[in-house]
């Protein structure tokens, strides 16, 4: 029996009983993990989770997700999440959509040989449905939409920051595995973004660019500057307006993904746009807040700082992956129109680069109903996938490939080269990177 007498966190009698093993050894181990998590975060107590979960643990690969043995232990103990949950996108095992060589397929077959077993276990532990796998769970087509002030134990950095900032729900940046354990026990430490005081902004970030900046580049600039702090961003409503329409939601989603990748930002406020900023205005700024201006030079300098990790630095790009994080229906329609326009202007039929676009399975199904847009993209040679492109870089799967992306998140974790949307379009149509020899 471990010594829990010196805990600073306050526990209810029911929580103490679980911690003492009165409801079985497995629940005891989970409660110990969550309580020690609370101690580390200096939480006063645990609180009940009130919304569905979203977890990052989709792939049957130790190091990214729990081991099969750990899942077996949980299932054998009869445990599952208190509410159904959604997961991050599936592994890229839909080979036809990814332009893969037979050697790459073989490696993926080996890497994911236990995936089918793992998927079954996720359903046993409470996965909402076999198709509930995307990094945009809150889209209407998917249906995991937290309410304002819901207490969550989410992971996936891009989802946590969106849930906190744009939806006004409350989640810390929980790591893989801890997400599942908290949702099984139904409790999470009362700390961090669950507390009003911790949701106050300690940075005032002023955007002074000449036009609306690429969202993931702006997000990276903010994340790099504020690291794990909460920024209050002013100047974006000049371009986005004050209406939370789908274009704005998409922009804020991508900006958040950039913030969370380059830093550890779990919450931002945007003046005149996000719910808490609308209610409290600059009253959200904490005392002694720091200030920072981001202009076009800031973003250009950041862009230039990204190394080219291709083996042959001036090589022509072979592939393009779009949709990290997954695109919304609105973004799919935007890309369909832009690609069509660019091809027409260049008097071309097909893109010069093998291109895959990712979105939630439910969103892709909906997009397919828009026959004109679907046809525009498929005619251009684009393929679609509900998977996560990042997993194609594990085990050096793509080390010899020249892949471009509009995702600063994908760039940060792989050797893919990042370009803003406008440049991506040019490259897709011309086949060349402007400025490269």
């Amino acid at each position, binding site marked *: 029996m471990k010594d829990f007498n010196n805990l600073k966190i306050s526990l209810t009698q029911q929580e103490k009983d679980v911690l003492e093993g009165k409801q079985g050894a497995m629940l005891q181990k989970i409660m110990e*993990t969550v309580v020690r998590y609370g101690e580390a975060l200096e939480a006063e107590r645990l609180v009940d989770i009130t919304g569905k979960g979203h977890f990052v643990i989709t792939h049957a690969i*130790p190091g990214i997700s729990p081991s099969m043995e750990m899942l077996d232990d949980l299932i054998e103990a009869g445990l599952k999440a208190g509410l159904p949950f959604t997961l991050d996108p599936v592994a890229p095992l839909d080979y036809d959509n990814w332009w893969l060589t037979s050697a790459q397929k073989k490696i993926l077959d080996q890497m994911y040989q236990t995936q089918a077993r793992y998927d079954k276990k996720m359903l046993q532990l409470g996965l909402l449905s076999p198709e509930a796998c995307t990094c945009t769970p809150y889209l209407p087509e998917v249906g995991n939409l937290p309410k304002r002030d819901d207490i969550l134990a989410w*992971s996936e950095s891009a989802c946590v920051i969106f849930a906190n900032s744009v939806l006004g729900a409350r989640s810390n*940046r929980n790591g893989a595995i801890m997400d599942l354990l908290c949702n099984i026990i139904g409790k999470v430490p009362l700390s961090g973004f669950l507390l009003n005081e911790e949701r106050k902004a300690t940075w005032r970030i002023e955007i002074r660019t000449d036009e609306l900046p690429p969202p993931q580049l702006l997000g990276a600039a903010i994340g790099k500057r504020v690291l*794990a702090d909460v920024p209050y961003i002013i100047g974006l409503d000049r371009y986005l307006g004050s209406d939370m329409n789908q274009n704005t939601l998409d922009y804020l989603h991508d900006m958040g993904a950039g913030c969370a990748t380059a830093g*550890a930002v779990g919450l931002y406020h945007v003046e005149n746009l996000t719910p808490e900023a609308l209610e409290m205005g600059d009253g959200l700024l904490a005392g002694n807040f720091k200030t920072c201006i981001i202009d076009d030079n800031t973003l250009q300098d950041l862009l230039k700082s990204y190394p080219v990790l291709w083996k042959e630095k001036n090589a022509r790009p072979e592939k393009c992956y779009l949709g990290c994080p997954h695109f919304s229906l609105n973004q799919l329609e935007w890309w369909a129109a832009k690609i069509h326009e660019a091809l027409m202007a260049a008097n071309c039929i097909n893109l010069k680069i093998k291109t895959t676009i990712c979105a939630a399975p439910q969103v892709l199904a909906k997009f397919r109903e828009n026959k004109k847009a679907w046809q525009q993209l498929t005619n251009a040679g684009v393929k679609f996938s509900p998977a996560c492109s990042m997993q194609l870089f594990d*085990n050096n799967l793509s080390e010899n490939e020249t892949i471009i992306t509009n995702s600063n998140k994908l760039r*940060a*974790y792989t050797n893919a080269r990042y370009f803003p949307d406008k440049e991506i379009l040019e490259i897709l149509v011309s086949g060349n990177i402007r400025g490269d020899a």
Partner: protein
Amino acid sequence: MNLFFKGRAVLSGATEGQAVVTHSGFNTYASFFTSIHGSVDQVICADSSNPELFGKDLADKIICLPKTTGSTSGGAVWQRLAEMGNIPKAVLFSQKIDSLAAGGLIIADVWAEKRVITIDRLGDAFLETVRNGDRIKINESGTVEIFK
């Protein structure tokens, strides 16, 4: 003259080792991305966005950092590294530990039964003082000694 810093022992323990230092956030997932998928002797930092650590071997080192950053997949990375036996000896945070690091390191401790000694709240002066390659001694109470 040796320098002493007092922090909070999140996962207590005593050890000695060599410092690797990042003044920007430590992106756990990006740093260990190539080290978690197979048997490797070294744990080479793969985070190209972190020029201070990119390409450095982190196995058996003491990582000195302000906070961790990046993907929440970083939580499972600690458990995997612990199971593979290629973990850093300790992580020393100048600030309060972040939720992502806390979760991952505690899961490695409880479920893989491998402890990465973890001290937080060592203060900005600690990170301004410690240099790559410095020898560091950590004691159970959370005191960190830098040999200068």
